[in-house]
């Protein structure tokens, strides 16, 4: 069954119930995954999640309901449910309207991969085994603790009572391996390495395993360093957590309008080092967050947020855009059919610099390189603190030794201003950011 069918049914039936506006979002996601535990294939799962969510509006009153059963009876029940919720809900005076129909751009290239869609459970198992072998083959001191390889094939349809009708599909491969190295009585810190791609031919489970193992071995023989404030080279994932997550929260128009962002009213001001340029690009070829339309059926686009350190734009859905009488930037996002849309980045792309990782290390007089961060980041205030895992001490441009029991702390917004250099090698992170490693100054390095 095409998903446009149940979505269309929900629109028609809700209209019959007398609502002012209605929007339906139907989704079907097939996931095949293999779980590795304690260095062994633990489990294989094939699951199909299907469902539909409906948002109805009556005199500025909003109701939302969902169901995992796509039968006519179940959809009608869901619509009556949403309608009765809207009836008891207090009105939201800021509500203007659901988005109007608009011409959609072409589907971004490389978001659906037939090879990935055709994969069977057994093919996913082969990927997992390759990842496993990649780690095992590197060094016999490496012990794999956990891993998971997932292949996802999803479809979604959005429709609303103003004529929006959008349908799309996509594929995703995701895999991670967690391992540690054990040498005599020493156990290294645990490494976590992963990758996410749209297409099978871009996905290398061997690399995930190899890198996880390399990092585990490299963090053996760790020493503590006395606390200091210095330069920190943040690897992809760490840069994404510490710098880009607060950046994304701060350009989220909902946070801006609600006074939750320190960047409210700062459009045109210098908020980061001039080295930093970042944009949200919902149309990037092969982007893990790319689609021709967002979760409200609004056309996706590229929105500049930071250009040479200057704050140049915010990310909107139709609700925040209507409040300011402007157009949505196509950043409505849903975690699933069972929740209403909120604002999120699609692909937050950091413009790459010219220096490779080794060149960045060579720039550091006294500092650390951090490859995994286990901690907390306050996206509003920008305060962060946590354990620097797979971290090494750098002195006079050279990596000296790996660190143990070391924490880092600081403020993300100050760190954005203290960016010294941006690397040249980029990759996607779990936060849907595409970022190279980033070198920042004045980070607190704290040890026992």
């Amino acid at each position, binding site marked *: 069954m095409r998903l446009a069918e149940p979505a269309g049914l929900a629109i028609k039936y809700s209209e019959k119930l007398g609502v002012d506006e209605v929007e339906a979002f139907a989704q079907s996601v097939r996931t095949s995954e293999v779980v590795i535990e304690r260095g062994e294939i633990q489990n294989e799962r094939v699951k199909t999640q299907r469902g539909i969510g409906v948002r109805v509006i009556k005199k500025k009153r909003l109701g939302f309901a969902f*169901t995992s059963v796509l039968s006519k009876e179940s959809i009608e029940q869901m619509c009556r449910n949403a309608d009765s919720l809207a009836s008891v809900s207090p009105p939201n005076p800021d509500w203007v309207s659901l988005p109007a129909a608009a011409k959609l751009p072409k589907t971004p290239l490389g978001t659906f991969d037939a090879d990935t869609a055709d994969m069977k459970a057994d093919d996913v198992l082969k990927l997992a085994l390759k990842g496993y072998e990649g780690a095992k083959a590197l060094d016999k001191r490496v012990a794999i603790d956990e891993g998971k390889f997932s292949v996802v094939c999803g479809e979604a349809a959005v429709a609303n009572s103003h004529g929006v009708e959008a349908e799309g599909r996509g594929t995703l491969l995701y895999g991670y391996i967690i391992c540690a190295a*054990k040498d005599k009585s020493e156990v290294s810190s*645990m490494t976590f390495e992963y990758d996410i791609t749209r297409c099978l031919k871009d996905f290398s489970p061997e690399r995930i395993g190899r890198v996880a193992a390399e990092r585990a071995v490299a963090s053996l023989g760790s020493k503590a360093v006395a606390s200091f404030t210095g330069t920190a080279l943040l690897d992809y994932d760490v840069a994404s957590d510490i710098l880009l997550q607060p950046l994304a929260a701060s350009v989220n128009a909902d946070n801006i309008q609600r006074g939750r962002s320190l960047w409210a009213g700062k459009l045109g001001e210098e908020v980061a080092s001039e080295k930093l340029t970042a944009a949200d690009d919902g149309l990037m070829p092969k982007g893990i967050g790319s689609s021709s339309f967002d979760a409200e059926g609004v056309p996706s686009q590229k929105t500049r947020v930071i250009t040479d350190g200057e704050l140049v734009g915010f990310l909107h859905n139709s609700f925040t855009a209507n409040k300011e009488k402007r157009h949505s930037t196509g950043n409505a996002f849903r975690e699933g059919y069972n929740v209403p849309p909120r604002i999120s980045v699609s692909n937050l792309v950091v413009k790459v610099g010219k220096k490779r990782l080794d060149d960045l290390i060579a720039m550091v007089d006294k500092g650390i390189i951090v490859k995994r961060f286990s901690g907390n980041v306050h996206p509003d205030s920008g305060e962060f*603190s946590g354990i620097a895992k797979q971290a090494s001490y750098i002195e006079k441009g050279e990596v000296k030794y790996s660190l143990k029991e070391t924490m880092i702390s600081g403020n993300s917004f100050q760190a954005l201003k203290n960016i010294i250099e941006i690397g040249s090698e980029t990759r996607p992170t779990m936060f849907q950011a595409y970022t190279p490693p980033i070198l920042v100054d004045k980070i607190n390095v704290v040890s026992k």
Partner: protein
Amino acid sequence: MIKDLLERSIRNSRGYVEMRYHKRDTFSVSVKDGEIDALNSGSVAGVCSRVLLEGSFGFSSTTVVEKENVDRMLKDAYSLARASRAKKKRRVRLANVEPARDEFETLVKVDPRKADRLELVRMVIDTNREIRASSKSIVSDTVRLGVVDDELLFVSSEGAEIGQRIVRCLGVVTAIAREGGNIASAVDYVGEEGGLEAFKKTPLIEAGKTAAERAAKLVKVETAPGGTYSVVLEDKIVGLLAHEAVGHCSEADSVYGGSFLADKIGKRVASEKVTLVDDGRFPGGFGTMKYDDEGTPTGKTAVIEKGVARSFLHSRETAEHFKVVPTGNARAWDFEFDPIIRMRNTYIEPGRYTLEELVEGVKEGFLLKGGLAGQADFNGEFMFGTQEAVRIRNGRLGESLRGVTISGNAFEVLKNTDAVGRDFAMQIGMCGKEQQNYVGMGGGSLRTKLLLGGMR
């Protein structure tokens, strides 16, 4: 009936087969800055089967609970078990569990299924209003109320037939304060397993006040310093220590992996003040169920008793491997997942000190309040976030600072725990270990030494 359908499907099947039906009804209200986001209600249902054939598990699920689909799902589970067998080194055997035929229901006084939704909406709006009124510096807040109503059915080829209904009520409040160029946020939770009376026992407004007062206080102050300090953890965050530092390392699957507790059963791993329990029946606890998702009855498992390691947390599989009785810790998030070893309600038993006495014993350190996200590695290195750090000098409480992430090695932290308070709080939590699940985390306030990842 679903039960008959599932029982018919597993009759005469090969090896061991279990099926779980799970229907999850949810209702939530969220109010942002006085305006309602959307009232949300819905239902997800499905069934899964797990088979054990010649030592190899196979698992499959479906959302269509009809004969044809259930039969196909079972066939898929068999073929996955067969296909992956050659690639698995370990042959699974299950510890014996008496197949139960039983019904269990969370004690519900005010049934959410019959709730006046308007009344719930009003409660959220009122909470929101009070937060706004509490301080000028509060610029934004979000109040969310949720009810999760689970209907579970477990049947197995061994003859088990267990029906459970588990109802959870929760509220989350975040408050944001701004003053000048500074911003600070705070979050607090209330809730328990039970009906809507949960919001009478632990009112949403209490969470609202805690979050609002904290945000308004923290917006004016600096961040705590970094370094190793003597600390007192308030009862509301001791559960995070119990869960992150110890609990994960006592899960028998991470014991296989070589957790720091692996060879410690019967040995001293903590100061004698520490008794750490994982309890599947704690009244109102977010992880309370009479049976786990393998049909094993739950109970109270002492992980550490007066400083000595006593037990790991087991599934039927790991219990057989370690030759012990299964503890009922195999849990699944929903029908799309096979059960894995999870904590239920993990807590450190209260001691005999008052909070004042705990603080008196600290020369220079902090009282840490309010929890944030945490993580643990099986080598015993753990971290979790704190929201507020109240300075202690010469046994006296001083000014509040912004909390930071703290870390430590479980072994050292447990050995350094020299006093546990007589107070006790059980908190609700979400734990994400491969798949997520609801857990309870609790304890009495305690005193130990930790590394604060603060400013220099």
